[in-house]
């Protein structure tokens, strides 16, 4: 049984239909990539999985159970973490408070401390910035904080929306090495990226989203060598 199953999902904003019969699946501990142009519906897909926007049709199953229509906080509590597009850290809270909020569902204060310490091992720079306001971090640090915040909640599935956006190549490499290591910790990842090359290199499998529809899917390697993908998303051909 796949961990996450999206079946014929449709969602949108008023008259705009952002997702059209989208189906995909993620198996336990698997990293999949979703690539697609600006406006293809990638963010909407993650927001619909997390319950921020509601499904008009179709459903989302998590561990075999339908989570369609649940409120976002209930979905997070089932183990789906989400680091949203544009980082969206809390700018006027300290790094520590941001991380504590990441573990909002953890009521054991000692366990929360350990979880935060563990995440700070992945992103050592955050450990040195604990009392600084989130909004005063550099772009790269904010992105790390956004990923770290989602990890503190100990998700079994992590949705990452364009973590590399606007970051220097060195920072992207650092971030991607952490993301690559997540599957070894048993965390399944849905990685949404414009940086298709890097994403497909990490991903076991990938999906191409175009104007709200899945138009291609396959293993990371297959997609990276597909002519259409190379032309449209890898800038080759």
């Amino acid at each position, binding site marked *: 049984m796949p961990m996450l199953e999206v079946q014929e999902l449709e969602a949108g904003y008023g008259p705009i239909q952002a997702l059209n019969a989208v189906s995909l699946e993620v198996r336990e501990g698997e990293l999949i990539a979703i690539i697609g142009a600006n406006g293809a519906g990638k963010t909407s897909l993650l927001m619909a999985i*997390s*319950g*921020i926007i509601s499904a008009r049709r179709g459903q989302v199953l998590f561990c075999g159970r339908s989570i369609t229509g649940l*409120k*976002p*906080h209930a979905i*997070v*509590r089932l183990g789906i973490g*989400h680091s*949203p597009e544009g980082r*969206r*850290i*809390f*700018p*006027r*809270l300290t790094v520590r*408070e941001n991380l*504590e*909020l*990441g573990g*909002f*569902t953890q009521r054991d204060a000692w366990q929360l401390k350990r979880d935060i310490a563990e995440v700070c091992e992945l992103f050592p720079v955050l450990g040195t910035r604990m009392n600084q306001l989130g*909004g005063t971090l550099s772009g790269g640090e904010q992105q790390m904080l956004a990923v770290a*915040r*989602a990890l503190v*909640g100990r998700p079994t599935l992590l949705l990452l929306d364009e973590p590399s956006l606007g970051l220097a190549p060195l920072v992207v490499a650092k971030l991607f090495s952490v993301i690559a290591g997540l599957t070894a910790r048993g965390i399944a990842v849905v990685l949404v990226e414009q940086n298709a090359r890097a994403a497909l290199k990490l991903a076991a499998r990938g999906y191409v989203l175009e104007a709200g529809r899945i138009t291609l899917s396959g293993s990371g390697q297959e997609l990276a060598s597909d002519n259409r993908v190379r032309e449209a998303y890898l800038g080759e051909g």
Partner: protein
Amino acid sequence: MSVQFFLQQCLIGLTNGALIALVALGYTMVYGIIGLINFAHGDLIMLGACLALSLVAALGLAAAGPATTWLGIGLLIVLCGLFCGTLNVAVDRFVYKPLRNAPKLAPLVSAIGVSFIFMNVGLFWIGSADRSFPELLPSINLLPGNSLQFNWKDLLVVLVVAPLMVGLSLLVRVTRLGKAMRAVSQDPTAAALVGIDVDQVIAATFFIGGFLGGAASVIYGLYINTIGFQMGFQNGLYAFTAAVLGGIGSIPGAVFGGLVIGLVRALASAYVGERWTGAIVFAILIVILVFRPEGLLGRRTSEKV
């Protein structure tokens, strides 16, 4: 005009200001969390005062001994606080919540509507004439000498307002709920994505703001000694002004703004004349906002990343 007279006016102003601040907190907290100016807040407090008046009669507090009186006042504050808090939550649940994703004007106009409904309830409850609220506390000067007056009821304001404000600031700073409230006010979507039940946090905020208003309504009755179904409008307006002056959305700002407005009102009515008070308060407000649109302790919008 003596120094003593000036100090006396300051004392009166600060005491009044503390009361204004308590009401201002209700405006600023709701604005901070959902960006709504809850125009019904002043009238909510008027209803709290109606309940307080009814309870004073029902409990026979006007004829009680000192110990019973203090106990009774404590009970009034808790009951009126719970009443206003619960009513505020109900209004959010049935009026503002369905409009959460509507254009901002819709909940704003609804808030004005709720304000009128509350006023009519108040009219039905206590009638159209002003009602006198019994003096429950003896007017004895607590300060030595005759130069400055500070009575039991002045002390009552301090005794109630100070702990409520300390409690509120602790709640917002250190508790899980407080952290969740700050997160929701900064980014509700991101807050939901870390597992915060946003609706519940908003309801809690309405409850706390309403509770503080309920406490304020009791003190208002005991301090001003006159209540009426229209009291919500003017008092609400001053408190709202205090919240804007301090920087709407900012909790210390509401407290500071309340104290400033209280002081300005007292000094203006003592040195210029009662009837100029409103004009002076609002002229100062306008001048301050021209130079600091974000309010005295508010955030500059450019800080918002």
